[in-house]
């Protein structure tokens, strides 16, 4: 069984810690010149994106290139998927060309898990439907750890469309493993009550103020009204009840940081003032994305 990275649910705390430690070596402050390394020279990584993505795909591509690997990026529109080929056949064809790893983004939950059962090439999940997005969780953890020694006992509020968020699931699993208290917040229709039992130290609330009070970390999620099959919450009053504004930050701990996996919708889930404030570490997350993905690629390919 190849060791890819399909999620954080089954990632051990030790393995996660090793990735986070190694990612620090790849951060720009350690290596301001962002020199190209030859750790993965001669290795081939295929980026297979069945769903539109700019930041994650670019981030993986840069990470692989900086490690010296060869990369090929394929998007669904350009691939044979549009000619009616099944997912299994597409992957088998690619696997026959013997890449060392496949980085995959797919709109269907479990698509990489399904494929990994039929494939020997390790798969790194770059987001599957509404299930998991493990490298996002790792880069989020790296970003939080850049400002504190540990996640133990931190109060992390994750706010928005929890039900449809792969980031929320991966974050919850990972942060909980490191001892953080996670508060999930959103309107009841986007906050399945079962999430309370998904990991230790998770609680739910539909009240934004309650979620933010004494928070060390505020993670805002995009609300994808366009992707939902119904209207679970009136879009026109979402910002009023669940949008993060400057006045909310007074409720949080003084050193609290504001995060967002992007792309942000200013004026929908976060005000421009907050997004651009000193508290916002959104761009640090992007930087850490490359460092963490380098650590993951190195680990999977070596």
């Amino acid at each position, binding site marked *: 069984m190849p060791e890819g990275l399909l999620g954080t649910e089954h990632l051990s705390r030790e393995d996660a810690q090793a990735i986070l430690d190694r990612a620090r070596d790849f951060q720009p402050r350690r290596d301001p010149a962002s020199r190209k390394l030859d750790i993965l020279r001669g290795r081939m990584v295929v980026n297979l994106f069945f769903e539109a993505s700019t930041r994650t795909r670019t981030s993986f591509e840069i990470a692989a290139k900086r490690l010296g690997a060869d990369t090929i990026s394929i998007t669904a529109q350009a691939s044979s998927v549009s000619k009616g080929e099944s997912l299994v056949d597409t992957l088998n064809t690619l696997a026959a060309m013997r890449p060392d790893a496949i980085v995959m983004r797919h709109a269907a939950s479990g698509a990489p898990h399904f494929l990994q059962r039929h494939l020997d090439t390790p798969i790194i999940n770059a987001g599957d439907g509404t*299930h998991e997005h493990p490298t996002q969780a790792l880069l989020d953890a790296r970003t939080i750890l850049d400002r504190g020694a540990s996640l133990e006992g931190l109060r992390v509020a994750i706010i928005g469309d929890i039900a449809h968020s792969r980031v929320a699931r991966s974050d919850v699993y990972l942060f909980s493993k490191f001892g953080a208290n996670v508060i999930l917040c959103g309107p009841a229709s986007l906050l399945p009550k079962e999430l309370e039992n998904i990991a230790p130290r998770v609680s739910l609330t539909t009240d934004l103020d309650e979620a933010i009070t004494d928070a060390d970390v505020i993670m805002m999620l995009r609300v994808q009204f366009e992707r939902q099959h119904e209207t679970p919450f009136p879009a026109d009053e979402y910002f009023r009840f669940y949008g993060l504004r400057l006045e909310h930050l007074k409720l949080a701990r003084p050193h609290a940081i504001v995060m967002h996996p992007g792309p942000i919708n200013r004026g929908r889930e976060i005000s421009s003032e907050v997004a651009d404030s000193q508290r916002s570490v959104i761009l640090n997350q992007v930087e850490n994305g490359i460092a963490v993905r380098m650590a993951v690629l190195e680990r999977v390919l070596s």
Partner: protein
Amino acid sequence: MIIKNGRVIDPASGRDAIADVWIEDGLIRGVGQNFSGDDAFDATGMIVAPGFIDMHVHLREPGFEHAETIESGSRAAAAGGFTSICPMPNTSPVNDNATVTSYIVEKARRHAIVNVWPIGAITKGSAGEELASIGSMKQAGAVAISDDGRPVMNARVMRRAMESARSFGVPVINHCEDLHLSAGGDMHEGFESVRLGLRGIPGCSEDVMVARDILLAEVTGAQYHVAHISSRHSVEMVAFAKARGLNVSAEATPHHFALADTDMAPYDSNFKMKPPLRSHCDVDAVAAGVVSGAVDAIATDHAPHPGSEKMQEFEKCPFGILGLETAIGIALEYLVHPGKIGVRKMVELFTTGPARILGLDRGTLSPGAIADLTIFSMDREWTYDVNKSFSKSRNSPFDGRTFKGGPVATVVSGRVVWQA
């Protein structure tokens, strides 16, 4: 032919004793001791029962012969110990008129090795709007009506269907699912669906439909049957309807009293069906309904799909799994061996239960009855290999499972059509 020395269980007559069964000219001549004849089948150590009836299967013909045919489905039925099967009307074209019903009856007469009693559609094209030709389909051989898989959402249409069915004396079978509540769902809504990031089919999508239909059955006086019951509240409501004296019945599939959503291999579409595998609580309630009598019959909802359709992203895969060949093994393992019900009760659920609901002259070993028999073992170990299935499809979550007890021989109209 004489079937020698088996434990004969005939719920219709109350018989449960070691005996011989004498068959001649396709009919039961008698059940008794020390019959002799040239053509003897030694059933020592086995159960000899009236032929098992599966009142809910999909044979995919006409229209989807790459998945199953009336012939291949009938062979899978025989290998599962069934002597009679009732195909649902969701073929192409839909069995919503006497011509299609007659086609199925005729095709079965020539190619099937078990009895095939078709179920007609409730509405034209199962579109849920205009009533199908219910009376004509009954005359052509349909034994019930159902829009299985595409439940009638309009309560007024359902009311009219029940009134029409009552006039013609056929039961109305509903696949209970409020399509608005279940829209987009791929598995049972609960902890597992949330964990896996799959959209849920809530238990209440079944419950509200069962509730509506029971109320309509009371208004219309129709005979009403809940297909593949899977949720706790639905079982409670059927029990309630029975207590009120309504002509309401229910069937349960083996997978719904055997497997819960937590038993699903992650994103394995061989565990994807409708209704979905539900919570442990629901599984226990379905089994309890079988014990209490709220559930009248075991039916498989045998739903073949070719590999090309099941080898996809989970959310793209069609709903349904094979069921005919594993039903007896599962019923023994999950109901009889743990002591929830006796084997005699299990035989009822496969014989007199469905025969009574559908008004079939089957399910008995009385002298003069047509000689349909199921011979099965309670203890013979066997392993299900789906690649050796008689079905044309391979979608079973029970592949590789070892069962204690299962079908040994199947007799239809006095002829052995399958033998282990």
